Structure formats: structure tokens, C-alpha cells
């Protein structure tokens, strides 16, 4: 009903992968958006727990960011297309414009897709458990503020989940 601030858009989830080195905040995986919206619309505990379980069941990897020119160069090498001299001359003309950019400095994580094949370069996130929090913000008109408070929290221990 069009009468209250307390709507699904004012409820949000915060999700953390808990590792030995600290917590990593992550976004709700694309495949769980629908479940997440249903949970935010009608937040019952069983749905929150099930959502947290689904997130913990997933494997997470660090996002690999690399220079597009470098990637292309490696791909051509690995597929051995063209002779060596051609590749070298082409490589020379493919100097990245922003070679100083340190892609490795950025650490993002993402869930591994259902049928995704990971390469050797992909680094899995070694997490022990996940924590899912449901937050809700309210509008304080007198103070002209939005303030958020946590309403539900679920911790799922990955090591205690079967089959993982």
C-alpha cells in the first residue's frame, strides 16, 4: 500500500564472507536476486536462513582483472596463431596505453557460476562462514535523517555444511 516508508526498497541485505583474515562484503549473487527480493518483501526467518544457506553453498573467487591487450597477447600465444615474428611485431604495436595501471591492487570477489570452469589463475576465497544481515531504514523527519537498523542476522558455518 502506498502509505509507508517501510517497503521492500527500504530493506536491504548485507552479506559478508568470514575468512581468517577478516570479513569480505559481497553483493547478493545474480541468481539469488529473486529469492532476495521475496525475502525483502516478506522477511520471514525461514527464508532468511535459506538465503544465507544458498550463499554459503556457493564458491567465491577473486575477480581477475587484467589488461585487455595483455589478455589478447596471451591468448594468441596460447593458441599459437601466426608465426613468432608476426606475433612479436604485433605485440610491439599493442603496448597498453595505461600500462602503469595496477589491476592486481583491486580485490573484488564474485560467486562461481553453476557450470563455470575455473582456470588455474582463479583464486578461490577461503571462507569459513557467511553472515547475512537484514537491515531496514526509517525516515526521521524531525532530524532529516535516514537511519538504518539491523533486524535479522544469520551466520552459516561452511565447515558444518554437508558436501562442502
Amino acid at each position, binding site marked *: *500500500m*502506498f*502509505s*509507508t*516508508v*517501510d517497503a*521492500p526498497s527500504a530493506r*536491504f541485505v*548485507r*552479506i559478508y564472507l568470514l575468512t581468517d583474515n577478516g570479513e569480505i*562484503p*559481497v*553483493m*547478493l549473487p545474480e541468481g539469488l536476486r529473486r529469492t532476495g*527480493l*521475496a525475502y525483502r*518483501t*516478506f522477511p520471514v526467518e525461514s527464508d532468511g536462513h535459506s538465503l544465507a544457506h544458498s550463499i554459503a553453498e556457493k564458491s567465491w573467487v577473486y575477480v581477475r582483472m587484467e589488461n585487455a591487450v595483455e589478455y589478447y597477447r596471451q591468448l594468441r600465444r596460447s593458441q599459437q596463431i601466426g608465426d613468432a615474428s608476426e606475433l612479436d611485431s604485433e605485440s610491439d604495436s599493442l603496448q597498453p596505453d595505461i600500462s602503469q595501471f595496477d589491476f592486481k591492487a583491486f580485490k573484488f570477489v564474485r560467486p562461481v557460476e553453476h557450470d563455470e570452469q575455473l582456470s588455474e589463475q582463479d583464486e578461490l576465497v577461503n571462507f569459513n562462514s557467511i553472515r547475512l544481515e537484514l*537491515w531496514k*531504514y526509517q*525516515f526521521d*523527519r524531525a*532530524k*532529516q*535523517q*535516514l*537511519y*538504518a*537498523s539491523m533486524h535479522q542476522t544469520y551466520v552459516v558455518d561452511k565447515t558444518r555444511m554437508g558436501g562442502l
Partner: protein
Amino acid sequence: MNSTAPIHNSSISLLGGSTRFDLVISLTLLLLLLYPHRYWYVNIPLSVFAVAGFIFPVVRRSALLWFLVTIVIFIGTVINWYALDNHKYLLAYWCLAVACSLTVQNPQQVLAISARWLIFLVFALAVLQKIKVPHYLDSSFFYYELLFDSRFHGLAKYLAGMPEHMQTLNEAARRALINYDSLVTQVNLESTPRMSSVAAVITWWNLLIQVFIALAFIFNNDLLCRCRNVLLLIFLFTTYLFAPVVGFGWVLAIMGLAQVRNTQTRMMMCYLAAFLFLQVYRIPWGEILRWATV
């Protein structure tokens, strides 16, 4: 369908002599076609039913078609209950009412009764909800809407004097609060001195007109019968000017048209005008005004 009531003589020339019942169900088909569900398994069957109904009058007057339409909408509604706007539920009930009316001798009369009760329930429940929730009557809700709902940005700008950079700042504050990696638990918002008054006017206007509509549609005497259409039309012409949820407006306009007495031809024409004007309201007047004044 010989029992369907024809539109009063003065309107027949304008509407090509169609019966009101026919007009109502045709407009409902148009609504299904132009404002479909976003889900293909609802959208595609409804488009097929609507097109078939437009081409073949016998199909659009068949109870079977309307029961199928109802079933498809209900399936879409049940599966996606958490993501649908209120009026999609109302549309499902309305299509069920059309289907049921086609199983009786006098469909126009049955549809008129259904329309009247549905309109009453929509407004009565809306009023109850507004009274029940803690922050509606103190106008906090509309204050919040003026700050954040893009549909009200024109009102916030021209009536409350809120500049665009404030709207951008407030939205940025909200995003900072809800972002997945945020640790922030409160953000300050920007507003203008006139915002409170504008919010209070909208709040009470919205509540009072809905109370009056609910009252006018529950009692069935001559005076209220005349008032109810005027009230509903005022609601349609004013509310959707600022919040152009055309799907909802169209359902209400169609139901309004369905319950008008046969002698109230002017009201019928007003409902049809509302049906058309709701489209005109979608024109981005704010942007045009901005462009024209640059």
C-alpha cells in the same frame, strides 16, 4: 448479450452505437495489451487473448476467454507475488468479475455491482492502511516521497522549491546507506522550508478524497450516486497527474465507467476522457518546461 444496456442515445453517435458492456470489456482488453505483465508466460497469452477479443466480438463476449485471462493473471500474480504492484491484483479481480458477469442473464448489471464493490474495497482498504501505519497521518510518508520518489520530483521542485542538486544529494545519501559494502547507519538529508506544508497538503488531500470515495461507493442513494462519480473522477484527474501509474488509473476508470447508471451519459464521457487523459499525463511536462525555459 441482448441484455447488455446500450449507452444512452446522446452518446451512441460518438461511440458508434456500441453497448456499454462491450465498451468496458474492450477497454479492459486494451489495458491487458498495453500494460502487460513483465513475465512472458503471462504477457504472451494475454496478448493473444486480447488480440483475439478485439478481432472477434464473440470471443470477447465469451466467459471462457475471461476465465482464461483471470487464470493466467492469477498464475503470474501467485508466482511473482513479491514483485507486483497492487493494481495487478486488482486487475485479476476485475477480470474475474467480467468472467462471472458473462455467466448470468444481465452481465451489465452484475458488472456494475462488482465494479462498485471493488472500488469501495480499494479505497476503504487504502484508508484503513493509511490510518493504521504510524507515519502517514503526520505526513512523514509524503515528505519522504517528495524527497525520493522521482514521480514527485516535479512537485518537490515547483511547489516546495527543492533544487535538483538537493535531490541528487539525497539520492546519493540513500545509496551510501544501502550499498552492499557500506558501514554507514545514518545519513543526513537536505530539504526546504516549504516541504512540510506541501507534504501535509498532499497527505490530507489524499486521505480525505479516499475516505469520501469509500463512503460514496458504499451507500446507494441518489445523492451519493451522483457524488461518487464526481469524486472518483477528481481522484483520477488529480492523482495520476503527479503519479502517472496509468495501469492503476485505467482499471479505476474502466470500473468507474462500468458502474455508472445508464442515464449518466456525461459521467460516462468523463470516464472515457479520464481514460485518454491518463495517457496525456505521461508526457514529461517537467522536462518540456525545463527545455522551453532554457
